[in-house]
Structure formats: structure tokens, C-alpha cells
């Protein structure tokens, strides 16, 4: 590996590199977070946690297609109390750990944040944008400017940690929603959650494959949409952006950073390139920066803007 400095300061959190494990991928246990950290991630996000435990949708919950992945996991999680027990002594993980917090109403978000407050999370991410779980995200109307403002404000009151608000690529008014989050005190925007939902039908059985029928689209299919969202957001808001969607190579990461992302999330890339996708992406970023005369991630952020 080259000596290029990939470090990033994200809302005061120091990351050795800009790659972050996206929520919902591998973030079920502390042991897996640690494994991802050992595979090069600059930070990791846990799978979203609600007040009560949830079984999620039945299988199939995750499938792939030519252009990416389709998932409707349905926010399975053991609930905040079990999560608080699972994610103790987070310093063992070796990199900053971001809590992902969900709820059907703003009080739930507050309760989960409270419940996790004794653990050493570095930030709170609130996804208001899941397209396939009744009661949550888009299906609960959390993707409006007003709801975003309300939920973010409520969380803001109960935590001093940086708050990342995670938005949907579906919503034409993504910038308005991001501004609502910014106004409510969010420290960063995570853009984007999975897109759609989409549906894949098995024609022999004449049935949608996912048990929930529809699910969020991620991976390559999502990348141009995510890049455009980040590009638009960079012009619209002042807080930093974590760019997520279809990143699996160093080039993809740099593209997202040039669109305006200060750090980048990786989900589906864990499938397409393996659990060491973080290390691979970092090596590819370094090499490219070296060949192209960049010496810091910061110097590339938003470079695609006039």
C-alpha cells in the first residue's frame, strides 16, 4: 500500500479512511463489526435497531439480479435492550461504530437512542427512508420534510453525538428534506438508502420472489442515482454527506466523493467483491490518488462541481 493519507474527519469523528460499512449489511453482531474493521473499513454501522425485537419479513429477503440486489429484510433486530447488551465495549471493534436507530414514531427513536446511550457509539444514524417495511421509513411517511424535521429534532434533544439522517433516493425533493434535517440539527446526511421498491417475479412459479413481494434496489443499479443525489445535496446543504449506493471499487468511491461526499458507505459491495471490499477500495483509491496527484480525500470532495 502507498503512503497516501486517506484519513477523514467526519463531524469530529476521526476515520483512517472514508469507507463505512452501510447499515443492514453484516452489522448484526459486534464480532462481525470487528471482522469488517479488520477488513479495512474506516467505520462501521450496526443493523438498524427498534424499540421492540422484530422478526422481519420471511425469506427470501435478499436476492440479486443483473444490475444489483433486491432486499426486503424488514428490519429484523433483537430490540434495543438486547442490542445494548450486544454492543458493549465497542472500543474492541477498532474503528468508530455508528448506531442505526429506527422507529414508527419519534418517541421510539428517542427511546432507542436512550437505550443505547451507555454504549460507546460514535454517531447516531436515523434512516427515514426504508421503502419496504410497513410502519417505518417511507411506508410510515417519515420521508417528508416535516416528519424529518420532527424526528431529527427529537433525537437532537437527547444526544450530543453526531446525528446522520439517511435519506431515500426516491424522493424528488431530496434537497428539501435534507435541509429540514439540517435545520433540525443533523450533523450529516447519509445519501442514500435503497431505491424503489422494485420487484422480481419468478416466471415459472408466477410469483414475486421476495416474501414481501417488493424490496429496495441497491448496488450498481443505484449508483448513478446516488451520485446525482449527492451532487444535488452538495449544492443545497452545508453539513457533510456520506455517499452510499453502488460503490464497490475505488473509482466508484472517488466518483461519489467528487460529487460531494465526505465519506462513503458500502453495502452490496460486500457481496460483489467480498468482505475485504473495504481494503480493496482503499487500495484502489490510494493508487488512483497517487497517479493523479491528489494527496488528501478532502481535496477531492465536491471536485466535480464547477
Amino acid at each position: 500500500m502507498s503512503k497516501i493519507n486517506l484519513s477523514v474527519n467526519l463531524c469530529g469523528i476521526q476515520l483512517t479512511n472514508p469507507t463505512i460499512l452501510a447499515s443492514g449489511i453484516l452489522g448484526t453482531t459486534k464480532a462481525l463489526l470487528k471482522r469488517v474493521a479488520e477488513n479495512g473499513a474506516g467505520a462501521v454501522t450496526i443493523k438498524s435497531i427498534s424499540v421492540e425485537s422484530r422478526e422481519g419479513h420471511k425469506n427470501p429477503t435478499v436476492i440479486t439480479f443483473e444490475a444489483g440486489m433486491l432486499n426486503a429484510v424488514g428490519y429484523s433486530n433483537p430490540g434495543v435492550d438486547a442490542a445494548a447488551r450486544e454492543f458493549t465495549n465497542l472500543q474492541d471493534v477498532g474503528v468508530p461504530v455508528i448506531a442505526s436507530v429506527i422507529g414508527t414514531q419519534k418517541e421510539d427513536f428517542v427511546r432507542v437512542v436512550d437505550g443505547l446511550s451507555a454504549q460507546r457509539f460514535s454517531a447516531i444514524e436515523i434512516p427515514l427512508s426504508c421503502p419496504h417495511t410497513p410502519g417505518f421509513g417511507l411506508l410510515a411517511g417519515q420521508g417528508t420534510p416535516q416528519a424529518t424535521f420532527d424526528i431529527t429534532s427529537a433525537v437532537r434533544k437527547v444526544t450530543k453525538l453526531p446525528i446522520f439522517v439517511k435519506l431515500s433516493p426516491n424522493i424528488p425533493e431530496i434537497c428539501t428534506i435534507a435541509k429540514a434535517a439540517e435545520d433540525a440539527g443533523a450533523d450529516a446526511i447519509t445519501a442514500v438508502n435503497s431505491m424503489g421498491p422494485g420487484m422480481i417475479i419468478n416466471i415459472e412459479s408466477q410469483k414475486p420472489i421476495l416474501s414481501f413481494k417488493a424490496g429496495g434496489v441497491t448496488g450498481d443499479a443505484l449508483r448513478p442515482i446516488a451520485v446525482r443525489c449527492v451532487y444535488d445535496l452538495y449544492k443545497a446543504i452545508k453539513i457533510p454527506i456520506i455517499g452510499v449506493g453502488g460503490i464497490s471499487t475505488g473509482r466508484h468511491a472517488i466518483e461519489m466523493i467528487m460529487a460531494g461526499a465526505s465519506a462513503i458507505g458500502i453495502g452490496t459491495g460486500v457481496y460483489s467483491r467480498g468482505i475485504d471490499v473495504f481494503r480493496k477500495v482503499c487500495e484502489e483509491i490510494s493508487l488512483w490518488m497517487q497517479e493523479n496527484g491528489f494527496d488528501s480525500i478532502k481535496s477531492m470532495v465536491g471536485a466535480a462541481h464547477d
Partner: protein
Amino acid sequence: MIEQPMMAKICDIQEESPGVKTFFFKLNLNFEPGQFVMVWIPLLDEKPFTISYIQKDLVGISVLKRGVFTNAIHSKKIGDMLGIRGPYGRGFSLKPDSNSCVVGGGIGMASLATLVDRLNLVVDKRRGHVTVIQGARTAAEIIYQKRFRDMKLCTEDGTAGFRGTTVDLLKDLLKKQRFQKVYTCGPEKMLYKVVELCGEHGIECEVSLERYIKCGFGVCGQCDCSGQRVCIDGPIFNIQELSRMEDFGKITITKTGARVIH
């Protein structure tokens, strides 16, 4: 590869025991012993099963009737379709030049069946031998009765073969003979004891683990066992790997992600 089920028509059904049926399909799967496939019933659910038979283009899964899903499979008839995706995971690594013992408990025997077939094919008769131990609660639960050359049985109630557990029987055998490798699948408490025993005797050992499987290809994190994804890093783990997996034999993770004692 695209991770989507392909519908396959059931072309034969074989009763292995009152609770276990094998369903056969004409399918070309690049399957290694130890791997598994996801079986889909549209609109119902999708669950992991081992391929227990491979004969030319014919593959079979042996299913123990346990709950909603396996009951639904059992109600399928010849000509019905099931969705199959995979194979997934890392299979067994064979040690053909030596004596080995394959230890199966209950339906765990299904995960070992193609391994035994393969070992019998590749083991050099002058240098090695394959011993199979199958354990069950009672005689009626024994499967693949006539399938393998040297299969020793044990039952908890003594209705067939040795009275006692597979671990007891393995311990017994070890007094008389030496195995270079043990392969095992079954209830995790049994696996734990087999591993302990192999550790004491300095025998190589590979174990097939079960955890709740969702994606099957390493992204959802549901099948974690101490940082190892059973679906892709396993389901086969060796004794060295298991020694670093604290949860092995102790803790499993449910559908919700909660840790429960095994």
C-alpha cells in the same frame, strides 16, 4: 451468478424414515459435499437444506418434518415444483489417504451423505477406510439404512445398534482404531463433544454448523457465529477455526438477531 431461485420439478420422492423424505430433482448443480441450497416455496418461505444425493443429473434433498416449512415440503407431490438457489458455502476438505470417521446425529446425517459417497469414491482402499456412525433417538429414525458400506448405528433407547450417543460410540471405536480425520454434523451439543474428543486425541475434525440463514451469500449477517458467517465462511469449520469461535456450542442467534443459549 444471480442469486435467485430456479423452479425445479420433483421427479421422485423416497421415504427415508417416518419423519424424513427425500425429494429428487433433475438439476445440474455444481455441488460440493458440505454445501447447501436454499429451498423456496413461493409466498411461504425459503430455508436451507443440504443436497443429500447426487446421481448424474439427479439431486435429492432429505427433509425432516419439523415445523411449518418442512411440513409444507412434505406435502409436495411428484410433479410439484420447488425453488432452489445455490449451492452456497464452503464444503468439506477431503483427506482421502487415511482412515476417517463420519459422525452424524439425526438429520445431520443428510449433510454428510454425499461426503460419505465422495469419500468412498476417492479413498485409496489400501491406505484408508471410511467408518460412518449414525446416531438417532430410536431405531425408527435411522435413515439411509442400506446406503453405506460400513455404517455403525447407535440409538439413545438401544432399539438399534449401540445404546448411547454417537460420542460414546466414537470414544469406544477410538480405543480400538485410529482415525486421521472426523467429519461431523448434528445437534451442536454433540458437535461440541465430538470436537472436544478429537482435540484430546489430536484428530483433525471438520464440523457442519447450523445458524439461521437468510441471504445465504454473506451480506445479511444473520448467520453469525463469533464473526464467522456460517453461510459463506462455513457451514464447514475445522477444529482450529472453532477454537476461536466462542459461540460454538454455547450461543446461537435467532431470526431477530437475539443471542440465545444453545
